[in-house]
């Protein structure tokens, strides 16, 4: 009965099982493929096009529709849209990952401490989190930008801070559901230290829902970054960013629709890929939500 002749479904570890279910999800795999393509393009930006093209103005070639030499066409200053979208994507993606990373680490520390230690630590930390939650996150981010001023990294800080409260909540509830599970009690029974319990038992078991919400939030963060760029907060021209590219071409989209369509589709596809992956991960970690 227990011989490992060939791996049947019931002979995977939990992690393998999650990957197995994830790989079976076509939409999620499509998302992975799409996101990988976007990443590859953005990483290979220097190969595909040089940074000079981002700022160089080919006045003669203003408003060139997409063709062989300008794959995505050019804008009103004759700048290569392809190069701008590629290098813009670098900023959008890097900044989004940085935001989620910062918010996740801070949220894990706050939420983890609150959930694991409970009692007074929990009530004090959660009071603070509730305060932060009382302010809509867009407003909080804008207030912080008011203080810090413009700039990509200032925007990253602002958006990350505005998400810390949410992640603290998520981590806390993940820890709390595990806190009283019998296998944690069993670990205490043979003298596991708090640190070992957190690292070896709570983290591997609680990471699922945290990864899922981080992924789903990543999509929304990409949108937030480019919204801020569109509004003129954060990234300043001529540095390209997906949102700023759209706002700087706003006046010419009617006449030259590709100026709006191309960067917009880039954002939408990336966000969609991330959302597909997030949904896929959610179903893989917790198959009950699916059926």
């Amino acid at each position, binding site marked *: 009965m227990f011989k490992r002749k060939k791996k049947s479904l019931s002979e995977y570890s939990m992690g393998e099982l999650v990957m197995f279910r994830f790989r079976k999800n076509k939409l999620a795999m499509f998302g992975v493929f799409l996101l990988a393509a976007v990443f590859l393009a953005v990483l290979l930006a220097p190969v595909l096009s040089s940074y000079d093209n981002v700022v160089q103005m080919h006045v003669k070639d203003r408003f060139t529709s997409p063709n062989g030499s300008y794959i995505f066409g050019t804008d009103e200053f004759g700048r290569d849209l392809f190069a701008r979208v590629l290098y813009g994507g670098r900023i959008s993606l890097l900044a989004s990952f940085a935001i989620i990373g910062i918010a996740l680490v801070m949220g894990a520390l706050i939420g983890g401490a609150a959930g694991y230690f409970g009692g007074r630590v929990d009530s004090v930390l959660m009071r603070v989190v509730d305060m932060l939650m*009382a302010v809509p*996150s867009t407003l909080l981010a*804008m207030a912080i930008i*008011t203080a810090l001023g413009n700039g990509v990294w200032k925007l990253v800080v602002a958006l990350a801070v505005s998400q810390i409260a949410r992640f603290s909540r998520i981590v806390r509830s993940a820890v709390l559901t595990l806190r009283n599970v019998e296998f944690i009690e069993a670990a205490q029974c043979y003298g596991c230290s708090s640190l070992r319990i957190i690292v070896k038992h709570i983290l591997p078991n609680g990471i699922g829902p945290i990864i899922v919400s981080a992924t789903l939030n990543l*999509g929304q963060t990409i949108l937030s970054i480019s*919204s801020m760029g569109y*509004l003129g907060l954060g990234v300043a021209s001529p540095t390209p960013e997906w949102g700023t590219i759209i706002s700087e071409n706003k006046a010419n*989209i009617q006449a030259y629709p590709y100026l709006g369509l191309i960067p917009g589709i880039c954002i939408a596809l990336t966000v969609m890929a991330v*959302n597909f992956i997030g949904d896929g991960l959610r179903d893989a970690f917790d198959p009950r939500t699916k059926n």
Partner: protein
Amino acid sequence: MNWVKYAGKRLLMLIPVIICVTFILFLILSAAPGNLARQLLGQDATEEQIEAKQAEMGLDKPLLVRYGLYMRDVVRLDFGESWINGESVLERFQNRLPYTLMLSTLAMIFAVAIGVPLGIMSAIRQYSLLDYGTTFVAILLFSLPAFWLGTMCQILFCLILRWLPTSGITGWKSYILPTVILGANTLASMIRMSRTSMLDVIRQDYIRTARAKGAAMQVVVRKHALRNSLIPIVTQMGITFAGTIGGAVVTENIFTIPGIGTMLLNAVKSRDVPVVLGTVIFVTIIVGIINLAVDLICALIDPRIDLAS
């Protein structure tokens, strides 16, 4: 009247929240790098002019004193004047609030009226064409940036087709496109939430019990599942409403609607601290009241929630 007492208590609890939020913001805004007075007066202002400006803005006093003074004024409903044009913050806010509230409410109604029925129907007919279609629309709306959708729709419907006014508020037609654009993301989250919630509820034991009583599936859904599935949906509505007010910044900017969003954006860009601070306080209060309303509605739907404790 349990709920009156509860509402009173919740509103009172907003006060410490406001105090703390303002204090944190005050700290952040004071830590702003650079000399604000110089920034406001421009590069060729003299030292005296700058000092005078700083005194006028109250920037020469210690932080805590400034905070105390500010809060004293706030209690008297004086939120100070804009650093840019000297207008009263409160007055400006009062003038602009109706547009934003109108827009957010319309967007919310749009999203709920379409999203909740769609989500519930697709849960009941899971794996049907309707379900796949709805889910696809939700994913699409969830992934499209609002500013892009807004810009493109504005160009298409206002500039090319000329069906709707381009900008400003000139009548009910002016609200149509902004409502749809602002509501799009909320619509997506309403569809997803209703679908998940309904799927969860129809798997519950009490639904099986109701069917075992001899009620037809439609009756079971209407009488038993609907109300239970509404509980998380209403909670989600409260959360997204707060998001909608934030999202109004983008929508108002695209359609140049004179609401709080455009005011806040301009204030942030020109670092007009009193306006930013005032707006955040106001919106926090509004969001607090909305959350209270949501909790009251939840208590109305769900008898397990006891407002007294």
